[in-house]
């Protein structure tokens, strides 16, 4: 290959063509506009919104974040504007960006998932839904929907029934057997998977003897979780035939390449956006440089190339 030709970074996932495999992770990129001062949002492969529920949610009392070694805990508490305000105030801006917009959907009951999804169905400017099954299941004592393969499947089928939008199921890492959950989501009609969501964690202030967060539990994200995420993504890729989007602790193109090499067809960037607002852009450029320096002409030729 001519080393001067720009390599082809594009990938297609669940029928959505993206000009490169770098997406923003839900809840770390606001509703998109917050990052517009820092770079041209059209550069990213796709944008995933903050999780949207049926009604607006106020979220948890502060403190909501706390730093841990190479990571952070958050207890935002799913604060969001609710689906109506999202459609009215946020979607019009996103729809004009010219990149695929994926809406992260949350619910505290099967019914809520379905209601949010059906409200989003058929709206101009939405390319796909990402179903966040890490939400606490109020009916089952707060354990995540995603902790049980049967329940995970039920969430996916309920949503599948009310929309023709491509569905990406976002898995929680806190499970005994990720392959089992991954297959359940696939069989229930998910078009793709994304993982991992944050790992439940906690931190205590030894002086006050209280949680360092407004809630006991938070979600751990950032570089600290990358090895765990990479292993789960690798296992999910082995388990299913639908595409897998990998995330968890990605900061650099090298990190992204690890996920692509184990078989993820795209990656999402989360916590890194807080630190370097152009992190996605830097990762895209880094992927391009990697391919060029090795004379590889398509990113597809890197995906799943792990050697034994």
């Amino acid at each position: 290959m001519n080393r001067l030709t720009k390599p082809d970074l594009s990938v297609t996932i669940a029928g959505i063509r993206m000009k490169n495999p770098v997406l923003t992770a839900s809840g770390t990129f606001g509703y998109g506009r917050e990052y517009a001062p820092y770079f041209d949002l059209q550069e990213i492969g796709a944008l995933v919104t903050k999780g949207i529920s049926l009604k607006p949610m106020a979220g948890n009392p502060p403190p909501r974040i706390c730093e841990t070694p190479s990571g952070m805990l958050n207890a935002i508490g799913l604060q969001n504007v609710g689906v109506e305000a999202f459609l009215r105030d946020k979607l019009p801006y996103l729809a004009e960006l010219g990149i695929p917009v994926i809406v992260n959907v949350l619910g505290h009951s099967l019914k809520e998932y379905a209601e949010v999804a059906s409200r989003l169905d058929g709206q101009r400017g939405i390319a796909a839904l990402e179903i966040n099954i890490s939400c606490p299941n109020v009916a089952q004592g707060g354990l995540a929907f995603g902790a049980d393969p049967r329940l995970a499947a039920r969430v996916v089928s309920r949503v599948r029934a009310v929309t023709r939008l491509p569905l990406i199921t976002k898995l929680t890492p806190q499970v005994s057997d990720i392959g089992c959950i991954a297959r359940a989501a696939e069989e229930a009609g998910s078009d793709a998977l994304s993982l991992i969501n944050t790992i439940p964690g906690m931190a205590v202030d030894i002086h006050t003897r209280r949680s360092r967060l407004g809630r006991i539990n938070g979600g751990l994200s950032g570089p600290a979780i990358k090895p765990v995420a990479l292993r789960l993504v690798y296992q999910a890729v082995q388990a299913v035939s639908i595409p897998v989007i990998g995330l968890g602790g990605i900061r650099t193109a090298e990190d992204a390449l690890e996920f692509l090499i184990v078989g993820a067809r795209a990656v999402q960037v989360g916590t890194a956006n807080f630190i370097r607002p152009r992190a996605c852009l830097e990762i895209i450029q880094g992927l391009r440089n990697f391919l060029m320096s090795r004379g590889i002409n398509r990113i597809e030729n890197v995906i799943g190339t792990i050697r034994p």
Partner: protein
Amino acid sequence: MFFQELPLKKIEMMGPEVCRLGFASREIAGKARPGQFLMIKPQAWAEPLLPRPISIHRVQGGMVELLVRVVGEGTRRISSMRPGEILEVKGPLGRGFQVDPQKVPLLVAGGMGAAPLLFLAEKLSRSGARKKNRAPVLFIGGRTKKEILALKEFRQAGLKVLAATEDGSFGERGLVTDRLRDYLEAQSAESALYACGPVGMLKAVAALALKEGLPCQVSLEERMACGMGACLGCAVARKQEEGPGYAKVCQDGPVFEAGEIVWDE
């Protein structure tokens, strides 16, 4: 808003705990307003992970100055940087002070709260708010004399300074809010309060303002990850039309009308 990687131009310790640092950025200097802040971090991915919110202390030409108190690992790392090393800087961020030119500005600083107020003071002095009898007043307090910062600069900006320390080592013994109370009881000019400091102090200032019927803006702090409205990490309870909810300190603030805030949380 910019994200820049800039070499430190100067950095000096002002006593064991506080350092002053400066870098050149026409872009940031040009857009900055008093009360706004920056997210800063020594370059390269390393521990701690997240940038730290620091108020803009001063803008002179294209130079931006910050005042940082070492309280933990992040500020320790910042304070041990050397000139020439690269600082990652995001900003200017947030909503600054909205000055009412019709009123005598009363600035109330507790400890590190002096940092953003110097920028305000110097802006006021440049914009000619220094008219007779309308010169801004600075109420400044701390535990001890060492915590009283940037006094010379405040005076040079033409502010009348009323100080208090808890141990009496500088100014009157007591709290800065004691001095403010005395002052407010004695005078009658139309004034407006601009306060920055520990939350307990801000709460007391807000109560005084309410009692006297004075407009009052306070600059709040909260843990931040992004500083730009994206993570929803920096929640503060605010009275809202729809009932109480959370505002984002980084975007809706850090400067709020004292009356908006739910102080008892």
